[in-house]
């Protein structure tokens, strides 16, 4: 990694809104190549909303997101609740979706990709689970499957939305090791997290938001007590009588 890494994603005065009320308000900043960043903040702070906007699921109400890499270079792990776990697909086929960059929508999955998928399952500790339907997996096992899919995806930017929610300590530790290895390989990793101890011990950079930017930079500076106090004081409720937010002159 160079001393001044290139930005991979830039947020320009980004506002994301639900029914005109801002969930993320006038956020600007840069995600640098090779950084390992936690997005932290209280419930309703706009963390997952920001993730969805970065992957193109939400359109900005104002401002823009500048991507320096193609879509196939972004690996995204959504919250588990957004995936149809009753779909009749087995573990290996789920992981093989990660080969999208090579096989695309219509291409054949090659033998090498099949081998890499099996290796990815081994890495996440799910050797022998290839033919198991995903509906029969525990929450932790399913999260390991999604991590295996990300391993196969081989993306340069990896976005994780609450990757350790409802996961036991051992699985969390194993998955954090994978996150660290991605960081070691120079990939850019961003994770939405609730556990501040996890943020402090595993993520060198933090973006702390509470519907607006509280701090973005080295974790020990951003997670200072005064910043956390400000984040906690965030108004979670939308102001029904709010005035129109006029653009700055």
């Amino acid at each position, binding site marked *: 990694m160079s001393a001044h890494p290139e930005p991979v994603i830039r947020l320009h005065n980004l506002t994301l809104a639900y029914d005109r009320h801002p969930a993320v308000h006038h956020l600007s900043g840069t995600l640098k190549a090779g950084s390992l960043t936690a997005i932290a903040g209280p419930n309703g702070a706009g963390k997952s909303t920001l993730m969805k906007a970065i992957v193109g699921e939400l359109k900005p109400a104002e401002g823009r997101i500048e991507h320096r890499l193609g879509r196939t270079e972004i690996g995204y792990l959504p919250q588990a609740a957004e995936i149809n776990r009753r779909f009749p*697909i087995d573990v290996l086929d789920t992981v093989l979706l990660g080969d*999208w960059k090579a096989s695309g*929508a219509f291409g054949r999955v090659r033998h090498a990709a099949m081998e890499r998928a099996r290796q990815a399952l081994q890495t996440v500790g799910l050797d022998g689970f290839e033919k198991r339907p995903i509906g029969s997996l525990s929450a932790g096992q399913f999260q390991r499957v999604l991590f295996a899919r990300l391993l196969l995806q081989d993306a340069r930017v990896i976005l994780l939305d609450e990757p350790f929610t409802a996961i036991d300590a051992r699985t969390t530790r194993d998955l954090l090791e994978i996150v660290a290895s991605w960081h070691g390989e120079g990939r850019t990793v961003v994770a939405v997290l609730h556990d501040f101890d996890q943020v402090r011990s595993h993520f060198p950079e933090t973006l702390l938001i509470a519907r607006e930017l509280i701090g973005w930079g080295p974790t020990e500076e951003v997670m200072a007590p005064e910043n956390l106090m400000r984040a906690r004081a965030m108004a979670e409720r939308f102001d029904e009588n709010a005035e129109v937010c006029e653009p700055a002159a």
Partner: protein
Amino acid sequence: MSAYDIFLAPMVDYGFMRRALVACLCLALGSGPIGVFLMMRRMSLMGDALSHAVLPGAAIGYLVAGSLSLTAMGLGGLVAGLSVALLSGAVSRATVLSEDASFASFYLASLALGVLIVSLRGSNIDLLHVLFGTILAIDAPALTQIGAITSLTLVVLAVIYRPLVAECFDPGFLRAVGGRGPLYHVAFLLMVVLNLVASFQALGTLMAVGLMMLPAAIAQLWAKNLPAMLAVAVGTALVSGYFGLIASYHLEIASGPTIIMTAAILYGISIFIAPSGIARRYFPRPHLKG
């Protein structure tokens, strides 16, 4: 009466029975997989709504052709069904209405319009043909049309299988990799409407969805993975078509409803004895050691 007289003679002796059987074969091959994907996308009732939506188009086709021309009615039905599918999708994206709510509104308007058009110009008998189909009256051009729709469906499903699975299972992933989910959604809806038009000629607007959803529901009770579900759905639709036709011939009852009743009976049996049916709950197999 020998087994030959019961199971083969009607097909050997009568051309209209052979054409009906080939129509059922085509419908099973196309509608079976479509039904499974509809169910997997939690859109089971949307198929029903869309089948009703083809009615005004079919009625206009009937009025323009001046007779029960299956081609004219099929084309009209296709235009009407597609319009409802695309308009519903557009309204749900542009407003707070969910897709099933806008589907319900559009299909009801479409059904009402269809019945009005038929009642203005047609007789009650015409209306019955439109509502319940005329599988025994299928001629060679109609059969060609149904066969073409089935062939197109199988090719399109084979081509879009992977993104369609990704879209059903994890739409967020597909969006993140730039997979153009809405494009496949529209392509799939087009296949749904085309297959409903094909079924509509044979089974009528009221039961066109029957060979889609009943085999799909049966498949979910028997199979655990998608390829097996697709195979079971096609097989069940085939069996329903053949035995429904044979039963309607010998019992001298209407063919379309008999085919759907056969599928319904298979569904009823499956509810009780299939691996994922009631039997699993009341007669559990002993658990394993590991």
